[in-house]
């Protein structure tokens, strides 16, 4: 019945069934998504949203699946204005290639496959090592188009790099896991391609490298990325600390020369042809297990947070921005263990966000878990505003919510 209704609404070409036999729509426009949402809202159907399905597995129970894959257009690139407008289903590598043709790039290197959709990066708020130098995903998004759970189209922000008109509703959708609507398009802040791009790595014990990272920060050396990777993630026998420098040649060379004098670590400069591969390896590593979460950790708390993970979980793939605020873990663990990690982290004032997991884990834990005092009702009301019939199947709090 749902299948037939959707075909009547969008035409047969836009509706099929996914491997679980759930009706799946692949609308080709924001308006078409709005039509589907309105119908689902009226009928009380539950929807799950999927892009490439590499980041949020399409396994939530739902009456219909909505894929953004037909929304893969790079709508416009304005190099002189440092702005691009891109649809949510566009793969990142395609965006990158297109921007490079204009001498531009997007200062984002999120974990996962290179062809991850832009929408998944924004919805999960997953920033990568470049967060150190360029800020998190939220700093790269200037505005967006979103379809709410009841089919309204909302367009906060603008196609300019500086703008304070109206509330910054875009922020709600960056890292909102799709709970406040389906992202269909975003305005991105671009940068001119850096002239030099050099990566150095140091290998050693975890604590020695995290100390080296702190020395480097203390010395006011400012790499674009400063990432600590576990041996399993880096496919090495020891931990790896990687520093990436971007900018004009002379400045990058000067930083590279200073590096060994400011830290005790031994640094090796990666040959140019291995640099991209090294960072891609770290990014892909985050798919090396069924579960990925991030902790909010700064340089001071790094050793302690890593101890916590080592204590509570079996080996996982770990990538930590030494000062960027994010530590990411990928691996396999039962819900109870993850809950224990979240509790232990909360006791240290460390937020833990579940980024990627099977539905059973997301449902039990929630992406965010229990909120701080007083915030739960604000989030509930925001969800009621943007998804009044709870058509969007997103587990922000999970069943943990009832515990507190």
């Amino acid at each position, binding site marked *: 019945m749902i299948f037939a209704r959707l075909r009547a609404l969008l035409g047969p070409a836009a509706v099929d069934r996914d491997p679980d036999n759930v009706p799946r729509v692949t609308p080709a426009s924001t308006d078409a998504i709005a039509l589907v949402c309105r119908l689902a809202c009226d009928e009380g159907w539950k929807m799950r949203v999927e892009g490439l399905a590499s980041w949020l597995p399409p396994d939530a129970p739902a009456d219909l699946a909505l894929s953004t894959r037909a929304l893969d257009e790079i709508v416009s690139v304005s190099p002189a204005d440092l702005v691009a407008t891109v649809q949510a289903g566009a793969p990142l590598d395609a965006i990158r290639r297109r921007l490079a043709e204009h001498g531009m790039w997007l200062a984002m290197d999120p974990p996962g496959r290179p062809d991850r959709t832009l929408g998944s990066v924004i919805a999960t708020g997953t920033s990568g090592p470049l967060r150190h130098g360029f800020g998190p995903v939220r700093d790269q998004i200037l505005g967006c188009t979103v379809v709410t759970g009841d089919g309204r189209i909302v367009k906060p922000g603008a196609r300019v790099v500086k703008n304070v008109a109206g509330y910054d509703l875009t922020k709600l959708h960056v890292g909102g896991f799709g709970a406040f609507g389906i992202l269909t398009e975003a305005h991105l802040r671009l940068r001119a391609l850096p002239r030099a791009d050099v990566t150095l790595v140091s290998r050693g014990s975890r604590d020695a490298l995290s100390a080296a990272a702190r020395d480097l920060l203390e010395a*006011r050396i400012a790499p674009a990325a400063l990432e600590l990777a576990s041996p399993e993630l880096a496919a090495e026998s020891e931990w790896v600390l990687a520093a990436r420098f971007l900018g004009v040649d002379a400045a990058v060379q000067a930083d590279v020369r200073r590096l060994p004098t400011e830290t005790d670590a031994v640094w090796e400069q990666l040959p140019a042809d291995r640099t991209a591969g090294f960072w891609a390896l770290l990014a892909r590593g985050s798919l090396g297990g069924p579960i990925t979460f991030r902790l909010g950790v700064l340089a001071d708390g790094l050793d302690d947070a890593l101890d916590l993970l080592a204590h509570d979980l079996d080996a996982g793939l770990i990538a930590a921005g030494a000062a960027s605020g994010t530590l990411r873990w990928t691996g396999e663990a039962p819900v109870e263990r993850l809950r224990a990690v979240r509790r232990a982290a909360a006791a240290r004032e460390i937020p833990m966000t579940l980024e990627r997991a099977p539905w059973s884990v997301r449902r039990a834990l929630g992406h965010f878990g229990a909120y701080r005092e007083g915030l739960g009702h604000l989030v509930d009301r925001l969800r009621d505003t943007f998804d009044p019939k709870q058509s969007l199947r997103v587990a922000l709090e999970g069943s943990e919510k009832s515990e507190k």
Partner: protein
Amino acid sequence: MRPALLDALSAIVSPRWVRHGKAELTTYAMDGLPTHESLPGVVVMPANRTEVVAVVRLLQLLQVPFVARGAGTGLSGGAVAGPETVLLTLTRMNRILRVDPAARRAVIQPGVVNARLSEAIAPLGLQYVPDPSSQAACTVGGNVAENAGGPHCLKYGVTTNHIVELEVVLPDASVVRLGSPQGEPWGPDLVGLFVGSEGMFGIATEITVRLEPIPAAVRTLLADFLSVRSASEAVSAIIASGVVPAALEMMDQACVQAVEASIYAAGYPTDAAAVLLAEVDGTPEQVEAEAALVEGVLRSHGARDVRSASSAADRARLWQGRKKAFGAMGRIAPDLAVQDAVVPRSALPDILDRIGEIRRRHGLSISNVFHAGDGNLHPNISFDRRDPALADRVREASKEIMAACVAAGGSITGEHGVGNDKMGYMPWIFDAETLGAMQAVRRVFDPDERCNPGKMLPVRSCREWRATPAVREAAL
């Protein structure tokens, strides 16, 4: 205002910190914008969070609207309150509570003056980057409300990129903490939502800011051009070169002449059509390399002369004209309507031609000073508000300038906010649905709409959103 309310407020903060005489209230009749004026019912000056909570709880019980105010330097009428409204001035809450140099964070009260924060942490080699022109007076609490910018935001971002955690007193007097010092939220990004909400979601009583190292080297370049177009093209070429200058500021001839005729004269060439200030910072090697690159671009785009300064004193001299531009315009006429709009940077030359045309048609004196790197314009109209016909022409010209910027794909404000000044322009850039969403989000934080009422949202243009208080499923 009812005497009972005055008594109750006095009981909370002591009578000394409650102001209600007409002469006293006049101080609070405007913010930095001379075109909107209104006396608040009463001014109350709480000393700490406990007093803010007590005041807000009292106003909640009595259903009285209120407005939070910092130093009152805003430029959108955002901190102006009506006669039935209580104005909470937060300038007594001016303590820097903690500084963590290793984590590069500071925890401060909202009344801390922007420049004071940077002064206080300078001995640690750190700075708070967002530097609005009013930084010597404006408070960080006000910066948070308006998502303030400044010349150095081109490279480092505006206020929202530097705020990681907030303690907020909501309009129902409950206290919540948003965000974390790490910059990772506990849930959706409510810090991002709160910054720039123009005081309509609640009152921030504690703010955790991100600090940046003071760069080891800085160089300021000043170039003058014979046409605004070539100066604008130089700006685009600098950005395209891959260098992100710390600041990239432009002044047109009218602005330069006003500066040079004033006590702030900085030695800018008054026959130039445009003067461009570019600043690069970082390591000495970086500054050396980037300055050379920028200078090359400036010269190849027709700069007549490029002056360069590295010492603090020499740089201050080059900056003086830019920083004091607004003050210098005080010589021209008693009042100054400081405008704020954004266009895609590539549209700058055309929009400046258009502003010139509007200026001539209305017979006004308009000078332009702007953050060229990010397309943020400040056309400033000098006038005398005692001349009503002139004031009308100023309003009309401002509206036409704004319409031209919107038509060029821009926005109605880049850093000053909407307040009560630009409410009427909101439907130009947002459809009824998006405005309705904003109104609905406002009601999440402030269901009674008592918190800075009558600002930003033109209620009649907002499509109605009714958040059905759905019964939430116990388990998904």
